[in-house]
């Protein structure tokens, strides 16, 4: 395997230009929702609203202003698949369409996927959805095709402010630590890294620098792997089976003789 690659997204320098969103669509030839004719969402400058099968990058806008405007922030964040080291989507996929690549990224092979959609609810971040054109589940491939060709991902290339940093996870972590240090020294005590260590799903290969609680950015504080529920659910079900069997045995024991 090549060295693990990924993204470090520094949300503090994101200018919300959406160049990444468009670059992704252009490179991957993804359609616009409803042919591009939509209604105004009214949610700040976000009109695409979510990651899904045709939005593999999505820029979020969070307005935080006090009524007198003395405190005011407009947070922007370009969201994408986290390429989790322990990936829920990959775990549940029944067709094996979701694979871990040699770059330690998580990729959906569209030609293997049959559109069962199990992966959608399995992803703790709401990243995946069906692409109506292919009828299969799709999400960021971390530009697997470009990486293969030695190019950086289209979104990172388009980002004018280096909010999206692409590289080896080792380098990115160094960069992120340095930036975090700078910000904290500058008094931004709320700055923190999200998903940069193993505690979160074994590590997110696409991790973030945030300046507020993750929920504010629409990110779960404590994302979990779906299979956590497998064993307890199974045990309860076995108990249930045993109980039902016993009840049936008791109920049916030698019944029905009179009518035969």
């Amino acid at each position, binding site marked *: 395997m090549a060295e693990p690659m990924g993204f470090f997204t520094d949300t503090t*320098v994101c*200018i*919300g*230009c*959406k*160049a990444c*969103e*468009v670059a992704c*669509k*252009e490179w991957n030839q993804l*359609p*616009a*929702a*409803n*042919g*591009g*004719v*939509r*209604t*105004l*969402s*009214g949610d*700040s*400058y976000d*009109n*695409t609203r979510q990651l899904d099968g045709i939005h593999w990058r999505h820029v979020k806008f969070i*307005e935080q*202003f006090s*009524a007198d*405007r003395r405190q*005011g*922030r*407009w*947070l*922007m964040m370009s969201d994408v698949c986290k390429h989790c080291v322990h990936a829920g989507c990959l775990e549940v996929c029944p067709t094996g369409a979701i694979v871990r690549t040699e770059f330690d990224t998580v990729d959906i092979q569209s030609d293997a996927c049959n559109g069962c959609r199990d992966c959608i609810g399995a992803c703790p971040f709401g990243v995946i959805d069906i692409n109506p054109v292919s009828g299969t589940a799709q999400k960021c491939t971390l530009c697997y095709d470009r990486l293969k060709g030695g190019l950086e991902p289209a979104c990172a290339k388009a980002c*004018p*402010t*280096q909010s999206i940093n692409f590289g080896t996870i080792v380098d990115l972590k160094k960069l992120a630590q340095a930036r975090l240090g700078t910000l904290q020294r500058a008094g931004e005590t709320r700055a923190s890294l999200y998903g940069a260590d193993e505690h979160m799903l074994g590590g997110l290969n696409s991790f973030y620098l945030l300046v507020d609680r993750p929920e504010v950015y629409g990110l779960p504080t404590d994302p979990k792997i779906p299979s956590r529920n497998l064993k307890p659910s199974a045990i309860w079900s076995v108990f249930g089976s045993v109980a039902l069997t016993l009840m049936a045995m008791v109920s049916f024991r030698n019944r029905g003789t009179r009518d035969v």
Partner: protein
Amino acid sequence: MYPRSMADSDCIVIQGSNMAECHPVAFRWPMQAKLKGAKLIHVDPRFTRTSAMADIHAPIRPGSDVAFLGGLIHYVLASERWNTDPFFKEFVVHYTNAATIVGQDFKGTEDLDGVFSGLMQYTPSIKEWPLDGFVGQYDVKSWQYATSPPARPSAPPPAGPPFDPLVRSLLTPPPRRDESLQDSHSVFQIVKRHFSRYTPEMVERVTGCPRETFIQVAETILANSGRERTTSFAYAVAWTQHTNGPQMIGCCALLQLLLGNIGRPGAGVMALRGHASIQGSTDVPTLYHSIHGYMNHPSALKGHESLRDWLHAETTARGYWANTPKFMVSYLKSMYGAAATKDNDFGYDWHPKIIGDHSHLPMFVAMNEGRVKGMLCVGQNPATSLNASVERKGLARLQWLVVKDNWLTETATFWKNSPEVTSGQLRREDIQTEVFFFPSAQVAEYEGSFTNTQRMLQWHYKAADPPGDCRTDLWLTHQLARRLQAMYADSTLSRDRGFKSLTWDFDADDPRERERGEPDALKILKEINGYATDAPGRHLAGFGDLKDDGSTTCASWIYCGVFPAPDRNLAARKQPDPPNTPGAQLDWGWAWPANRRILYNRASADVRGKPWSERKKWVWWDGARWTGYDVPDFAPTKAPSSKATPGAIGLDALSGSDPFIMKPDGVGWLYVPSGLADGPLPVHYEPAESPVVNPLYRQQSSPVLKHWTLAGNQLAPVGDARFPYIITTYRLTEHYLSGAMSRWNPWLTELQPEPFLEISPELAAEKGIANTGWATISTPRGRVRAKALVTRRLRPFTIDGRTVHQVGLPFHWGYQGLITGDAANELTALVADPNVSIHEGKAFVCNVEKA
């Protein structure tokens, strides 16, 4: 300055632009500066994506920029730091005209309550066409410098070429100076008095910006100016689109000169240009009032009767512009080739002359008056710009209209589905305009150069053939020229001599391009660069080679040197500097003039030629010549200690410590004695339409602004209760201008799908307007519908103790495209500043109602 230099700034003030949204790629440099610790300040009525990146967002009421900048000037001049750090004194005394004495006749706005001496009624001359739109006019005589002996009466211009004697005849005595800056008529004292009213309290009263925020901005700028640190400003059309727009820019330049922030790395005033090659289009101009290289267009109104008259009027004896005869003669040679000779004044008489303001707005006024027969509309979409309804009515009165575009724009279909037609105001059958649509090639489908905002030419290559009948814009010009030449070939009329003599040898050598009728872009670049008249294979290496005797041919002197040899197109260079080396990337493309990146960079060294500081070194004197990271903007071997030669012309008239070599006095102008129509110093005037009575002076708005009185172009009077709110119009990152280029692209339309009005929760509540609910916005000119985007990023202002609401409207919509909506320009007025006739799209008044 240029955008990359902003990465070297210690403080960046973005005012008059929403740089992050409108110049996102160039914005990488401020962001790099920020990552290195620079402070970012955004002065904008709204909290935008730029504000989001800034350390300080200073909200100001639209149109109050001069008050804010004037406040900064006042604050700086009164500050301890400015008065104690010797750097500022040295810079200001030697590199600006602070010490120059102004004539006794001059009266300022303090004396005349908001106007300068010399204000007159506007009196159009007989030769002038009647659509100039001025409401007043200044006689600039009283603004001039004081000179010791009275100016010599001008002798009749001597003959030429060479024209040196003519230039020498233009010499006037040098102005008087007082380097102690104490003379009450010195520029410095005038400036100080002029801005004495602009106190922090007044700034708050006029702009609505909280005093603490203003002081924080001022302190940050002060702390980041000086020997070791530099501050830069960036602006775009939120400074230009005002009836006193050039004054805002001038005010900023004044401040930057006072702070020593000109000609140095990370310093200066960054003019962010709009379109990809808008800089190029003003250099090689599509401007009506100038010919190539910012020379004034021959005019019927200015005593430009003959070449000598023109030179007499347009040449300054001192400074680099003393070379004007060389630029002009080489230009005429380029126009008329062999037919241009000494004896016929190089064909000067054949050159067209202007008779007034022929810019965009008056042209559409003229159309409305039926004075214009036809229009070639190439890469523009006037049907949704600037009082759109008036502009469309103008289009409807044309006999013919050519639209050359990539899309069927609103302009191309105005006769079919404009609001006037769909509402029944105009009937299709009554519109006689014959519309021709020429599909246009895209930039990647031909080769040529771009000139970007840093005056840098970059060559681009053809990547694909244009589809079908699409042709380049050069093709249109080329074919028109050739066909008109053929038409005029047999004319004996003297007025057609120019056309008959025109040189036009741009046919492509490539057989395929030739067959398509396309010209050769390199041949055009060569014509612009220039060559030896009798040896066209010998390209000129730079404008130093230009002659005024007809031996050189050069269309645009400022571009001379981009193509110094047939095999060396310097615009095509793509060699970056090695990483982490200080430098100006001189091998990447080619920037005019002479591949210089920072203009007036002599000012990056002190009087003795030493860098002001190690941190801020850029160009310096090494004992024998000027050297450094950039191409020095100075005579290469002229020592810092050299004195001006008395009685000399050109650069010899300047000393070794006069960095501003384009200026006749070699220094930066705090006070502008000539060249501006609206005053030698910036003044806060209210926009042409304002709900506020000017808190500073009795003069409400610019006494010399332009307003065209025609039906559909009424202005609301000051404080009109029917239109109580300020409205400003602007761009979104997601769309491009009239939307022609973005509203057909589903990837972009889904990002911003519908027209919207940004409105504060306070005003929305007052008006009962809900987020995403429809609102109607009206002005005396028109009304539009848009959805409300209720956001605290907009705020009400307290102006002069009263709450003034503002709303904001992006202007990208129209009736063509995948997504459609009302154009903001249904609301705007044809009013303009007196210098360059730019409309006031950034501050006017409106009413807002729930729809």
